[in-house]
């Protein structure tokens, strides 16, 4: 990441997790979904960085922290093409794609205003019915919601 002309764009980390290739408009949503604001470890956030793959991108580096797949997969709905790098001793020891889970628990809000989850204190639950096109179905009102209509809680 050391670029002679521009200097250090994003610092390398010794141990931890790097989430790369995040669409810039989704970066801070990723921060909030993973509750990174509540962690006390060292976190570096970069946004609108040049990317050969997606034009501009966001990147998050979290020092000394590794995530369970079930946790990291929560971001699949908003950044399904993000890449996950597991770092140990400055080396990428594992690259992971984000997998869309079968069920999404209490992360998104139902788009149906008449849904019980929007009228009573009910945790939302969605079943993923189409992983390729990111289509989900509300466990309660049974309404299908496509990716562009997904609203985060």
């Amino acid at each position, binding site marked *: 990441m050391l670029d002679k002309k521009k200097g250090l764009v994003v610092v390398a980390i010794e141990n931890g997790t790097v989430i790369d290739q995040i669409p810039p408009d989704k970066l801070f949503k990723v921060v909030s979904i993973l509750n990174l604001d509540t962690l006390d470890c060292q976190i570096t956030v970069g946004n609108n960085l040049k990317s050969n793959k997606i034009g501009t991108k966001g990147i998050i580096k979290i020092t000394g922290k590794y995530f369970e797949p079930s946790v990291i997969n929560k971001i699949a709905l908003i950044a399904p093409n993000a890449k996950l790098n597991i770092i140990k001793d400055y080396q990428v020891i594992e690259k992971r794609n984000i997998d869309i889970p079968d069920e999404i628990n209490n992360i998104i809000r139902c788009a*149906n205003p*008449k*849904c*019980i989850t929007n009228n*009573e204190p009910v945790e939302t639950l969605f079943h993923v019915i189409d992983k390729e096109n990111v289509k989900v179905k509300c466990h*309660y*009102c*049974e309404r*299908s919601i496509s990716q562009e209509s997904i609203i985060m809680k």
Partner: protein
Amino acid sequence: MNKRSFVSITDYSKEKMLKILDYAAEFEANPNRDTLANKVVATLFFEPSTRTKLSFETAINRLGGKVIGFSDASTTSSSKGESLKDTIVMVSNYADLIVIRHPLDGAARYASEVADIPVINAGDGSNQHPTQTMLDLYSIKKTQGTLENLNIVMVGDLKYGRTVHSLLMAMSHFNPSFTFIAPDELKMPDEYKQFCYEKGIKYHEESELKDISNADILYMTRVQKERFQDIIEYEKVKNIYTLRNKMLDNTKPTMRVLHPLPRVNEIDTDVDANEKAYYFKQAKNGVFARQAIICDALGLI
């Protein structure tokens, strides 16, 4: 969550549906029993639906059960701001089974998760009304002798009509052919057409109620004025979907006309005397289907 709850038509497998229909036939042959002696059933109607409530309570009374409940949420504690969860948990302490009708989509699923007794959905908003579907299936099987390989013609509001969506899902187990007849504004949603396509179910769409000579079942629904953005469109189509007696002339002798009721003007009263008109008997079948569903939910059959 009680596993015997019946919230959505997809909670029943094909085998389960057929089992319930067999039991419904037994209840029809002998409707008065004491199967529910010493059982208390709560009928919680958070919105009024006299027809459905009477049907359920008739089913319970004919089986010797006791009924508690209310028929309008404005007379209950929920109008004082009590949450649905609290009402359900409280009633779970009193009754053996809950029958719930609620204006919000998904309310019955939620109730089934917070109750430790079984819950039967008697209609949750625009989502599901699965006991209606079971009585529709019972009526179809009774009049046609089978559920397999039938031509089902659905007419009217196919966009918002939850009964046609549930019936479509239920019939998908039995190799049907569908004809969807609806105005442009109220066409069958793509989601259900996609479902048919994936299941290899034949369907075609029409915009006028004309050729029904091949129909085994003509399933009529109400075209409601309030569904139209443009009132002129409503005025244009409202009479196209009215069934009149003479339109039944060239239909199969075994064909039957179904309607979830209440009807307004989509079936002319001159059809009522025709032997093909089945909608009032269909409503009567609701009691037998609900007797079977209630006994199943309580593990009594």
